């Protein structure tokens, strides 16, 4: 394995970049920034394809559907915007108004028609993207839900809360199946392994915890970051995990040996987002330093 930072675009946005999403089917990387815009980049050349405007404040969450044809974005302006990515350039499809800070983290339901969003009181709201209506609420009297993920097989929903508790729901019954209290601080990142066997959480307590979904037990804890863990993504083969942190570093972990096998020092400020491409040969990272970095993560 060769790990090299192959390309860095400085000043990719006018302000810090907060979210990133790799839409492999469209060969696009999408970034959302504090400068209120979403930019779409050619994932090969890193040239700007288009700038999607419309949000009033910084972009706090991005989510793509499973078929890579649609993207949802939310911002501090408390709006969900749905963008059509089946065409190039992408177009705004619809907008949904939500209450302030009531769609902090979002993810697509695996039917591709619904969007799950987290709320300040810990509930998870399910929106029908067609009608723009809130269809269901998964009640969870907890703290601020800061992160959400859905398992690739569609069976589980995971949500990390502000006080460090990770909740695991059954997607069908919407019932809480597991509660993990291993973190002591906010969980800003959750992610399922591609085979849906593991769920990992990254927390302000600098740790990454790996849990087995089926049995609801903690498998391991990955130490190494010296500040908050802000973002996580699994490599498509499920062997590696990438993490971005406010210690300005990106770490690549081997999920089996639980060791950090590489550290990228490509950014000068906190790394808010990391994302693998479809075959796991590349990793994109974005940072408060306004830059986008592309890393090679295999020798293919």
């Amino acid at each position: 394995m060769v790990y090299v930072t192959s390309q860095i675009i400085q000043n990719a946005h006018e302000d810090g970049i907060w979210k990133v999403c790799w839409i492999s089917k469209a060969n696009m990387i999408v970034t959302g920034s504090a400068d209120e815009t979403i930019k779409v980049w050619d994932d090969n050349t890193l040239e700007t394809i288009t700038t999607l405007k419309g949000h009033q404040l910084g972009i706090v969450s991005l989510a793509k559907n499973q078929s890579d044809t649609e993207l949802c974005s939310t911002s501090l302006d408390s709006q969900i915007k749905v963008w059509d990515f089946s065409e190039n350039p992408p177009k705004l499809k619809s907008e949904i108004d939500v209450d302030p800070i009531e769609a902090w983290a979002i993810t697509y339901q695996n039917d591709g028609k619904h969007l799950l969003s987290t709320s300040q009181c810990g509930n998870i709201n399910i929106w029908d993207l067609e009608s723009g209506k809130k269809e269901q609420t998964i009640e969870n009297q907890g703290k601020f839900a800061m992160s959400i993920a859905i398992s690739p097989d569609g069976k589980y929903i995971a949500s990390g809360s502000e006080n460090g508790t990770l909740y695991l729901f059954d997607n069908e019954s919407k019932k809480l199946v597991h509660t993990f209290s291993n973190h002591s601080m906010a969980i800003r990142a959750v992610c399922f392994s591609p085979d849906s066997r593991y769920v990992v959480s990254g927390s302000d307590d600098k740790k990454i915890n790996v849990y087995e979904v089926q049995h609801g037990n903690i498998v391991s804890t990955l130490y190494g970051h010296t500040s908050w863990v802000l973002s996580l993504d699994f490599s498509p083969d499920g062997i590696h995990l990438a993490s971005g942190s406010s210690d300005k570093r990106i770490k690549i972990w081997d999920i089996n040996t639980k060791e950090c096998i590489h550290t990228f020092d490509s950014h000068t400020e906190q790394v808010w987002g990391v994302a693998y491409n479809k075959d796991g040969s590349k990793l994109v990272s974005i940072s408060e330093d306004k830059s986008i970095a592309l890393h090679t993560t295999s020798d293919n």
Partner: protein
Amino acid sequence: MSVIEIPLKNSEEVLEVSLSDLHENSNEILNILNQEEAPLALYLNFALEYYKRSMFNEFEIFLQQGSKAALATPDQQKQHLLILNCLASYQIKKAKQIKLNDPNSQQDKKYLFEAATSLFNAADKIDIRETTSWIGKGILLLTKGQIDKANNIFKAIVDTPENANNIPALLGKACISFYNKDYKGALASYQRILKYAPDFKPNVRIPIGLCFYALGNTQMARKAFERVLNMEPDNVDALIYLSILDLNQAKEVKDETFLENISKGREKLKKAYKANYTNPVVALQLADYCFNKKEYEKVKLLANIAYTNTNVAALQALAYYNIGRVHQVNKNYDKAYKAYAQAIRLDQSNVLAQFGMGQMHLFKNEISSACECFEKVLVTDPNNYDVLKILGCLYSKLNYQKAMDYYDRISRIPKSKNDELNESNDYEVWIDKAKLLEQNDPKAALKAYYKAAEILESSNERVPPELWNNIAVLYHLEGDLGMAEQMYQKAYSECSEKMNLSEVDKEYYDGLDTSISYNVSRLYETQREPSKASVIYNKIIKNHSRYLDAYLRLGAIEVDQGNYDKGIEYYKKVLEFDPKNVDAYSLKGYAYSLMEQIRASRKTYEKILKDIDRYDLYALCAVGNIYLIAGRSDQTKQGKETYYKRAVELFDKALRLDNQNVYAANGIAIALAERGYTDVAKNLFIQIREVKSSVEAIWINLGHIYTELGQYQSAINNYENCLKKLNNISDIGYIYQCLAKAYFGQARTEKKVEYMNKAENFLQKALFIKPRDRALQFDLALIKQEFAQLVIDQQPEARTIENLKKALNGLNISKKYFAALKDVKNQPVNYDVNIASRREEHNETVRKAVIQKLEEQEKIEKKKKERMDNIKLQRQKELKERELKKEEELRKAIEEEKRIERQREELALRLEKEREEEIMIEEQLKEKKKAAASKSKSHNKDFIDDDEEGNMDYEDSDEDRKIKKKRKRNKRKHDIRDDESDNDEDKKNKSDKEDDLNFDGGDSDDDEDIRSTKKRKKYSLSKDTISDEDDDDDDEIIAGNKSSNSSRNRIINDEDDNYDEE
């Protein structure tokens, strides 16, 4: 002569007194002398005889009687003089015997001097020119220590021709010159004595030798002493000085002659001692010898001999010094101290005693007194290597700058004389210097260490592992982690090398190895590799189960990972080993504070203060901070006061222990600020910042203070400055929030939307880091609303549709936020719910205002656009017209040309005809020709006129246009002001009037100004670069005109040419 004859009065007979009878019969003799009125000379003679027999009482009595008798016999003045002089000299001699260190007899001494003085005065009455009395007076002054006056007297004597060779005067002069360190002068005087009195006793060759020695000519000195020894083989002075010369030579030339010289010296010393064991110089020299042989009791004895046999303070001081150093080697430091003190009291310039004293002060831990002593040594011996080194070392604890000076001085002294570089090659000096520099100038320290390593390597010595370790630590602290790691590796390998070399030092080097391992782990921690560090710490603990620092670091790593309980376990383990380990308690207290167990944290810190060290600065400040926080969160005024007071007490204590303690000062400043003494607090913070700008907290606090004082720009500067230094994300988030607040304040006071945008920008960054903070959500809503308000309040000229639209959108967001914020379920919240609800209501008012302004602005923009379009249209029209005109002119010109062509053709035709009519009258023909020419010329003139008129026309229209433009602009302004003053009728009227009044003049002036400055600007630019070019924009049209003009001219010229041709 064994008999003195006393002539009997009134008789020729004499009384013979046998000298052997002197002892018993002094009274009888004196009576006879008095009765027989014997000549004064006899008194003198008897006195001298008694003196020879050391019967000083009798000596004095005879002289006194003689002096008395002299009163009756005025004819024997010469003798009287001698008697007086003798008596005076004896007083001086007696005075000399009274030692300086005998306080009880000092008064007696004074009386003796007075007696001598009055005797000399009596002598002077007899004959003031008598040389003997003058010499006596000189000696008196000398004895009294009035050297200069004495010198004057001796000089005066020697300077009179008849006394040029007066031996006593010469001696006095030589002696004074020597005392004044004028060795050449002294030498000259002594040599003069030698010339006139070669057999003078004591032998002047001795002082001559000393002069040569003092002048550095040891060879001549040796010759002089050896000559003395030839004359008097037992001369103690010659022996002792020669012995000293031999020994010195042995010290200087350390070759095969060394032992020879030593033994030669010792032999002479022994001989001198045998000859005169009371000679102080001999005794001291011998004492030195015995000291080296460690025969300390003998040293003491000899020192005593020397002391009792000299009046010379310097020698007495040396005697005390010898006693002192014997006490010192016997570890009798108190006695040594006293002896050295005596020595120094006797002779300030005794370097050896000063050095010893310095050591004694050191022993008593009186560092600054020790430094004083050593510095006195340096006064006489400025390049004393050891003393400089000691001083450098001592001052490194007291005074950094002074220590640096000493090390600089040392490092400039080349150790061997052949050293070309002007630098010390003593690696120890460089290491000491480096150690000193470590605190203040790590880069220079690094250099010094490298220098030491270089010196060692160049002399093929191994660089000790400690040195590499120190270098590595410096790199580590400086942040050059790569170099640090390299150097630690060097230290490692050097250390294991040493371990293999000797069994003896194995234990030491094993310890060193562990230290280096520990340092490397610290490096890993800095490199943010805590797990790597943990591995090594655990290894250290495995080998050295009591290496407490490793436990502490393991604890700190756990705490850093948030595993507080695990961390505290490590700290507890340390406390099991060492129940008074302050670090363990401090770290434990810190861990509790991170766990927000404030009480436990405080108890832990207080334990340090109660049971271990009540002056522990860290604990004092930590508890102080806890009280500060308690004060801040306490709701009652009284509660606040008590907490702040307690906090300040603790900080104050810390400050009294360490007046440079930034954290304590900071704490006090915070307490002041919290209690409302903003200005005092500000000044204090500024002072602290000057002392230690590296502490971020100071910048933050100053930011807060400036925000409080409404000095937002200063606040922003401070916040932004510390933002650069922060690494902790939650701190960064907090500063974002502070910056948002400061920009918000600045935006509101300066009414600038840009600042509000900044505020919004920072606030959303803060919110992104800490989204659950509802106060931040509240702030965001507030910023959005205030942004709208600012845009409404803006001058219409500054207002843009873009901002109005942004304001409107922002108000939507703001409303949503306020609505959510006022509707809270979970109390308490960290913002005011009532304000949220009021702000939400207010939102609608602002929204309406924005919508209204937006409509107006759109109208204005529309008008503006229309007007712009109009102007554009008109301009296009004008351009078209001008083009048409141009075309017309061109067409005309072409026509004209054609016409002229035609005319020419006609003319030609006519000419042809005329030629045909050659025969016709010539006059007639000429006339015709003239007429044709004049006609064409008048045509030409018409053309030019036309042209000019065209120009005029154009200018007119241009002017016209300008005026129109102005009017329109005026109107626009008018409209806006009308709209604006809707709210305030009075204002409207007034401002309208003012507007009307000022309008034309003012505005056009403005216009003019702008134009002219524009032009001027352009001018100044083009002046240098393109001098030909005028204002291209403004004169474009005119220039175009010119060109068409010139083309026209060309045509005309062509015509002229044509005509000329013709």
